[in-house]
C-alpha cells in the first residue's frame, strides 16, 4: 500500500483509540477525585463544552502551538530539543524590551517589529542549542533544558532588578496601544504552522530532515549536510517559539513577572502537542488546541476541587495512550 496514506490511516486509528482509552483511564482516575467517576465526567464534559473554556483556551493556544509546530520539525530531524520553553520566555522578554524600552510607542509597525525581534531572539537561543550539538557534540536535550533554566533566571533577574516597577517583582504593564488582539495572535501562529507544513512537504529540506533522522549515513552520502540541516531546524524552531512568546506577551501577559522553576509550561506542553500531532506542524496545531483546552479547563475543574496538576497528568495520559495505540497500529501496518 501507499506508504504515506498508510501512515496517515494507521496514525488516525491509533489516535482515536488512544483518545478513547485515555478517556477511560481519566474516568477511573477521576473517580478518586472525590467527585466519583460520574460526577467527574459530568463536570469534565460540561467544562469541556462550555464556551468559556474554548475562548479562554485560545490565548494559551498561541505559545503552545508556536512551540509545538516548530518542535515537530525539530523532532522529525531527530533533534530532540526541549528548549521551546526558554525561547517562548526570551521571546516575550525581547518583545517587551524592544517595544517598551526602545520604540516606546505602539503602532502596527512597532508591534510587528517586536514580534519579529522576539522570533529572532528565539532563533538565536535555538541556534545556540543547535550549534553546541553540531560543533561540540553536546546533547541537545540537556543543553536546551539548562538554557530553559537560564531563561527563567534572566526573567527573574530583570523583574527583580533593572526592569522592576513598583514593590512587586514585575515590570510595568504595556500600555494598551502596544498590544495585539487574540485573533491576530492566533492567526500569526496558525500561519507559521501552515508555512512549516509547506516547508516540510514541498521543499527539499523536508527530504533532508526526514533522511537525517531515518538514515543519517544515506543523507550524508547523497549531499545533505547533517550539521546544516540540524542548524536550520534549530533556528526555525527557535524562531517560531520566539514569535509565540512575543505574541503571548503582547496579547495576554502584557507584563513580565517572576517565574518559578516550572517555568510557564507552554514550551513543555508544546512537546506533548508535537508528538501528539504526529510530528507534523498541522497536526501539532490541532493537538495544541486540544492541550490548550485541557489547560484552560483547569480553572473550572479547580472550582470542584480537582487540582490543576491533575490536568497535567491527564495530558500525559492522553499522550501515552495515543502513543501506545499509534505505535501498535503502525506496527500492525508494517506486517
Amino acid at each position, binding site marked *: 500500500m501507499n506508504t504515506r496514506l498508510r501512515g496517515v490511516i494507521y496514525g488516525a486509528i491509533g489516535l482515536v483509540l488512544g483518545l478513547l482509552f485515555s478517556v477511560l483511564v481519566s474516568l477511573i482516575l477521576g473517580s478518586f477525585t472525590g467527585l466519583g467517576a460520574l460526577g467527574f465526567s459530568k463536570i469534565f464534559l460540561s467544562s469541556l463544552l462550555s464556551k468559556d473554556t474554548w475562548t479562554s483556551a485560545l490565548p494559551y493556544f498561541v505559545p503552545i502551538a508556536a512551540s509545538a509546530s516548530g518542535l515537530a520539525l525539530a523532532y522529525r530531524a531527530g533533534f530532540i530539543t*526541549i528548549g521551546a520553553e526558554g525561547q517562548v520566555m526570551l521571546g516575550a522578554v525581547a518583545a517587551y524590551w524592544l517595544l517598551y524600552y526602545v520604540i516606546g510607542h505602539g503602532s502596527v509597525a512597532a508591534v510587528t517589529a517586536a514580534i519579529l525581534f522576539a522570533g529572532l531572539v528565539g532563533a538565536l537561543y535555538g541556534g545556540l542549542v543547535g550549534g553546541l550539538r553540531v560543533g561540540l557534540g553536546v546533547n541537545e536535550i540537556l543543553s536546551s533544558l539548562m538554557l530553559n*533554566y537560564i531563561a*527563567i533566571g534572566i526573567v527573574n533577574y530583570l523583574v527583580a532588578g533593572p526592569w522592576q516597577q513598583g514593590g512587586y517583582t514585575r515590570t510595568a504593564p504595556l500600555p494598551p496601544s502596544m498590544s495585539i488582539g487574540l485573533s491576530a495572535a492566533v492567526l500569526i501562529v496558525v500561519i507559521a504552522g501552515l508555512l512549516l507544513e509547506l516547508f516540510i512537504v514541498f521543499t527539499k529540506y523536508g527530504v533532508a530532515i526526514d533522511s537525517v533522522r531515518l538514515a543519517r549515513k544515506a543523507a550524508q552520502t547523497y549531499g545533505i549536510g547533517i550539521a546544516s540541516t540540524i542548524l536550520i531546524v534549530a533556528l526555525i524552531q527557535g524562531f517560531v517559539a520566539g514569535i509565540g512568546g512575543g505574541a503571548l506577551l503582547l496579547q495576554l501577559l502584557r507584563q513580565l513577572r517572576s517565574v*518559578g522553576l*516550572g517555568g510557564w509550561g507552554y514550551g513543555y506542553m508544546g512537546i*506533548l502537542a508535537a508528538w501528539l500531532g504526529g510530528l507534523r506542524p498541522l497536526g501539532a496545531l490541532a493537538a495544541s488546541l486540544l492541550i490548550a483546552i485541557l489547560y484552560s479547563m483547569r480553572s473550572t475543574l479547580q472550582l470542584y476541587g480537582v487540582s490543576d*496538576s491533575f490536568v497535567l497528568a491527564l495530558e500525559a495520559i492522553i*499522550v501515552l495512550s495515543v502513543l501506545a495505540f499509534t505505535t501498535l497500529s503502525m506496527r500492525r501496518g508494517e506486517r
Partner: protein
Amino acid sequence: MVNVAALLSQALPYATVYALAAQGELFLERAGLFNLGLEGMIYLSAGVTAIISLYTGSPVYGLLAGIVSSIVLALLYGFFVITLGADQAVTGLSIVFLGIGLGDVVGRATGGAVTPSIGILANDLIVVLALLVLPIVLYFMLFRSWLGYVVRSLGENVATARALGVPVTLTRIAALIINGALVGLAGSYLFFTGPLGSRWVSMSLLGWGWMSLGIVILGYWHPVGVVAASYLVGLLYAMRPLLETVGIPSSIADVTPYLVVIIALAVISALYEKMNVKPPTAIWSR
C-alpha cells in the same frame, strides 16, 4: 571568611539526591535505555513519600512507598519502550508530566502538613550509600564482573547481545527496577531533607531529575565520575548563598549550576575520551 568545611558538608544533601538518581539512570543507560522521565519519577516519589509518611506516621513506609511508585513509573516506561516499541524520548517526556501531575495531586493531599521525617542515622546512611557504597558497588559490578558485561553489552550493541543469547528483556526489566528504586530513593530523600524539610509545597521540587540526567553525562557514564559530578553540582548549589553575599543577584546565583553544567557538557567529553572512559555506544557517540 568562608567556612569551607560547612560549605563542603552543605553540599552533601544535594549531592546525595543527584548521586542516587544519576547512578540509577547510569545503570539503565549502560543497559541501552535512556529514561528521560527522571524528573517525574523523583517528583512522584516525593509526593507519595509525603502522603504515606503522613498517613502511616512512619517515614520508612513513606520511603518504601515512594520507591515503589517510582519503580511503577519505570516499569510503565519499560512497557512502552520494550513491549510496544514506542519512542524512548516521547515516552520519557510523558513520564515527566505524568509523574509531576500525579505527584502533585497526592502531595497536595497532605495539605502542607509536616510529616514525620527520617532520623539523622538513616539520613547519614543514605548519604554514605549514595556517595561511597553505590559507586564502588556499581563500578565493580559493571566493569569487573560478568553480570556487568551482560548489562553493558545491551548498551553497546543490543542486536549482537541478543544474538549471543543475552536475555535482553529480562536484563532490561531488572535495570528498570534498579533505575526506579534509586530514583525513587532520591525523591524520598529529597522530600525529607531537601529545601522543604518534610513538608509538601507544590512545584518546589522541580529540576532535580533534569539535572541528574545532565550529571550522567558530566560523569561520563562512569559511577565514580557520576558521583564526583553530583558532588560538584551539589557544591554549586550550596554556594548560592555565598554568591549572593558578594553581590550577585539571587536570580543569577540560582542559575550558576545550570550555566556551569552547560559549559562543562561542552568541554568535558574530550577529557574523558583521553582517559579511555567511553559512553555506551547505543546511547551516545561523539
